[in-house]
């Protein structure tokens, strides 16, 4: 039972353009959502998060959008840079402050020069 799904295993974007990574979830108890980036041979690195009381959160080039009615969130990266090439994981928890994160399968983002 995959509660958090990232349906695109890979995404290729030209440098300077917008990258949009998508994530769907099924558990309506999820209250807090996070995005992590992972390079090979490294652990996941926290990028940005959003609470269910918001529908948008911005941090520099990264913006996360949450649509609770559709149980969908997305990560926008503008402009995309070569260093953004990595695997991106969407994660969810059922309470702010909860430590049990449920991860999606990941999307491999490749930024082409």
């Amino acid at each position, binding site marked *: 039972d995959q509660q958090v799904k990232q349906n695109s295993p890979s995404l290729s974007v030209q440098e300077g353009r917008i990258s949009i990574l998508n994530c769907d979830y099924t558990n309506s108890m999820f209250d807090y959502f996070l995005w992590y980036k992972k390079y090979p*041979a490294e*652990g996941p690195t926290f990028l940005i998060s959003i609470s269910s009381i918001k529908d948008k959160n911005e941090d520099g080039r990264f913006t996360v959008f949450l649509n609770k009615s559709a149980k969908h969130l997305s990560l926008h990266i503008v402009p995309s840079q070569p260093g953004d090439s990595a695997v991106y994981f969407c994660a969810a928890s059922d309470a702010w402050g909860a*430590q*049990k*994160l449920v991860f*999606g*399968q990941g999307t491999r983002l490749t930024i082409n020069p």
Partner: protein
Amino acid sequence: DAGVTQSPTHLIKTRGQQVTLRCSPISGHKSVSWYQQVLGQGPQFIFQYYEKEERGRGNFPDRFSARQFPNYSSELNVNALLLGDSALYLCASSTQGISEAFFGQGTRLTVV
């Protein structure tokens, strides 16, 4: 500041053996969580410990156990290893009350 450190980085074990993985959290972080990541999947929650007490457990068999020490470091033990236990084991630490977990580089376990 040192991040989350895990040891060893790689190891190879034989089926049926036991393994212990170690994790040191970021200074000041009292919560440690363990995750298993198999190839092509996202990390899957195994355990969370806070102040030496188990606060959460994922859907893993009893062969998996963990503990947290007074200095907040943690060990993950896996008994009677199976081939399917081959994975990247990630440790994460955080301050209680937030969900943003900071991960170590992981331990790559291969069971042959």
